[in-house]
């Protein structure tokens, strides 16, 4: 472990950028123009990238067992045995991630300065984008599960804010809300997993959430049960629920296609290259825990393969250029989880990196197309764009070849590695993976042929407007294309100066060889040929259906009564099902509780109010008749007596004198009778 304060600057630079842009962006944009905003946003990320490269080289110079740069900022939560500091750590795994986040993120920032140029809220967009970069870097660099969760929530928030960035349209904000709410479901699992992990670790005398301490002491969970379940399985299952939310896996993948409502750079950065890979990263980071839970690994692998297949089939029938890519992202994330589930952590992370390059390139390319088509996203109105957009189409086609797994492009290496390791662990899932490889090649080339080849189906006005994007947008495309071509070579021995797998070894070393090479290179070559064959088949089919048009798509869409086609077109009606079960269910619960509130709770409240009112009415009566009555009685008696006595005071002097006389006479008589008696 080496102390390196500059590591903290990697996440804090984008945070500073977000603070400057968020607080003073409007003024800055008015005074100095959009160029200044772009400079701040891109500059902070570029600096962070430079620091990431520096950190990478410092790590490289260290002994493999001690490759950890730590920047401890300040103590955060110290309660009982819970000791959490705000500390950022760069180890081989997070070094790869920060290079991806700041490198590809920086290119997307640059691209966005061109793409968002006409937007009035330019500064707000970049404030969010920088804030997202900060949150993502916190997620990756945080040295404890809790700090990772802060970043985890932060990227969720930024994702919400950016999906609904064009908030004047209800559909966009609804999509943002959907993403956020679905993510919250997953986050609930994450939190439960974290609590259970800390609680049981604490019970075993090692209460900690810091990753390297967890790795050191996780073995104490061996054999510990919770309600009859092994704790390690429960914890990892809960955490995996969190991963399915963030990384769009079954059953929580539904938000990602809708997230395409955001601006295209957002889709590229958040919903393809970085944020959605957070779940994969988390599983790789906690690989020592997942290795203790074979049941969870089986679930992860199965869910991953199933998601890859389901999303790939849905992508076959989509007509929105971004939706095809969105389902493709879901499908590729499925690959990564398949890799995690079979213990091929390095291969999964490798696919994460290569996917980040070619998917970012594809998304930015689609953004360039949408930019040229003046907002049109329907592929049925495109076609023949290769003539108008030479740079975009070249980069897009190369990236498509990469995702289809054509050698020697990036996707070939990573996909092949995952499939090979899957074959060693679970051959059935390998078969699914190969099928998905074929489907991927088909739908991606369907997209290429529909968008860039054939006749242009756009209306004349749009066709007249068609133009290549400015160089701030095409330069990132070229660079990302270069990444999509070259990233695959990282797997080779001379890749990151060391082979990718060896580079990650210190982080995942102990469990990496669970499924270590059980089949030889000969088998691997055979498998490679099979998956290449599947991909080539997919491309050939797409060519016949959408380029040479020698095969009608309807041949398939009308097969089996058209039901499979309609199921795929309708996205298996999962959204409708969720709407029916969860949204309507919750609304029903709402209405029931509202009724309960209205009639029972309010009834009780009203009843008690009525009782109080009755009591006060009674006490009012008592006051009126008893208390006031007593007072009035005294007054009345006095008044009555006064009226009676008043008559004596007639004012007639004669009468007074009579009384005096009678009194004196009476007195004398009394005296006499008294004197006579004594």
């Amino acid at each position, binding site marked *: 472990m080496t102390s390196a304060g500059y590591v903290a600057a990697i996440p804090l630079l984008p945070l500073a950028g977000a603070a400057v842009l968020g607080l003073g962006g409007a003024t800055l944009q008015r005074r100095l123009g959009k160029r200044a905003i772009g400079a701040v946003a891109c500059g902070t990320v570029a600096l962070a990238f430079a620091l990431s490269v520096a950190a990478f080289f410092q790590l490289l110079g260290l002994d493999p067992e001690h490759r950890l740069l730590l920047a401890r900022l300040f103590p955060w939560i110290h309660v009982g045995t819970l000791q959490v500091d705000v500390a950022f750590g760069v180890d081989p795994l997070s070094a790869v991630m920060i290079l991806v986040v700041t490198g590809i993120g920086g290119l997307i920032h640059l691209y966005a300065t061109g793409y968002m140029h006409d937007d009035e809220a330019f500064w707000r967009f970049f404030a969010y984008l920088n804030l997202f970069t900060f949150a993502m870097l916190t997620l990756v660099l945080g040295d404890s599960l809790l700090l990772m969760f802060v970043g985890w929530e932060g990227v969720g928030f930024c994702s919400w804010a950016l999906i609904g960035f064009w908030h004047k349209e209800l559909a966009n904000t609804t999509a943002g809300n959907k993403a956020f709410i679905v993510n919250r479901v997953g986050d609930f699992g994450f939190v439960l997993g974290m609590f259970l992990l800390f609680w049981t670790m604490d019970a075993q005398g090692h209460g900690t959430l810091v990753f390297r301490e967890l790795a050191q002491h996780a073995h104490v969970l061996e054999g510990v049960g919770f309600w009859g379940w092994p704790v390690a399985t429960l914890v990892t299952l809960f955490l995996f629920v969190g991963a399915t939310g963030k990384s769009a896996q079954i059953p929580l993948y539904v938000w990602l296609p809708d997230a395409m409502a955001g601006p295209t750079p957002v889709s590229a950065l958040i919903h393809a290259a970085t944020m959605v890979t957070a779940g994969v990263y988390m599983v790789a980071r906690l690989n020592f825990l997942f290795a203790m839970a074979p049941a969870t690994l089986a679930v992860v692998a199965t869910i991953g393969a199933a998601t890859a297949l389901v999303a790939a089939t849905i992508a076959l029938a989509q007509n929105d250029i971004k939706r095809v890519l969105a389902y493709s992202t879901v499908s590729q994330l499925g690959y990564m989880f398949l890799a995690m589930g079979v213990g091929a952590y390095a291969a999964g992370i490798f696919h994460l990196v290569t996917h980040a390059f070619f998917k970012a390139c594809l998304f930015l390319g689609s953004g360039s197309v949408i930019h040229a088509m003046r907002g049109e996203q329907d592929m049925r109105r495109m076609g023949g764009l290769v003539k108008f957009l030479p740079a975009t189409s070249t980069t897009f086609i190369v990236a498509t070849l990469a995702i289809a797994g054509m050698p020697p492009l990036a996707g070939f290496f990573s996909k092949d590695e995952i499939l090979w390791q899957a074959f060693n662990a679970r051959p059935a899932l390998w078969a699914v993976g190969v099928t998905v490889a074929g489907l991927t090649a088909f739908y991606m080339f369907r997209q290429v042929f529909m968008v860039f080849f054939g006749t242009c189906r756009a209306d004349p006005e749009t066709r007249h407007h068609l133009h290549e994007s400015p160089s701030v947008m095409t330069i990132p495309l070229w660079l990302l294309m270069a990444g999509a071509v070259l990233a695959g070579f990282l797997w080779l021995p001379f890749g990151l100066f060391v082979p990718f797998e060896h580079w990650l070894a210190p982080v995942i070393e102990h469990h990496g060889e669970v499924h270590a090479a059980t089949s030889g290179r000969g088998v691997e070559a055979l498998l490679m040929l099979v998956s290449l064959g599947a991909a080539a088949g997919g491309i050939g089919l797409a060519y016949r259906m959408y380029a040479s048009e020698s095969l009608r798509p309807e041949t398939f869409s009308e097969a089996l009564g058209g039901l499979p086609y309609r199921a795929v077109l309708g996205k298996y009606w999962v959204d409708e099902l969720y709407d029916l079960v969860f949204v309507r269910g919750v609304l029903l619960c709402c209405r029931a509780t509202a009724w309960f509130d209205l009639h029972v709770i309010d009834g009780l409240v009203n009843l008690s109010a009525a009782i109080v009112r009755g009591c006060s009415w009674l006490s009012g009566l008592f006051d009126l008749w008893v208390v006031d009555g007593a007072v009035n009685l005294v007054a009345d008696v006095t008044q009555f007596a006064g009226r009676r006595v*008043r008559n004596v*005071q*007639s*004012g*007639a*002097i*004669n009468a007074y*004198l*009579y009384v005096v*006389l009678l009194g004196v006479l009476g007195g004398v008589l009394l005296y006499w009778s008294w004197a006579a008696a004594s």
Partner: protein
Amino acid sequence: MGTLSLGHFVVLGGILFALGLFTVITRRNAIGILMGVELVLNSANVNYVAFARYANAGYDGQVFAIFVIMLAAAEAAIGLAIVLGIYQSFETIDVEATDRLRQ
């Protein structure tokens, strides 16, 4: 026929007092009342002088009688002034009518 005794004077004083008191009570005319008061005062004078003569008590009784006569004169003056005031405010000197003090 016997000589005058103290008893005769006391009876005379009593008769005078009774007459005065009767006048005061029955008269509705304020001046009549004042006259009754004079009778009552004079009955007291008779008693003073008689008891002074027959009880050998010196001249104290006579002196008091003189005081009473003087007092009666003053009383008559003040009383008549009051009656005049009453007449000015009520335009009558009927004591039955002048009963406004009670309100």
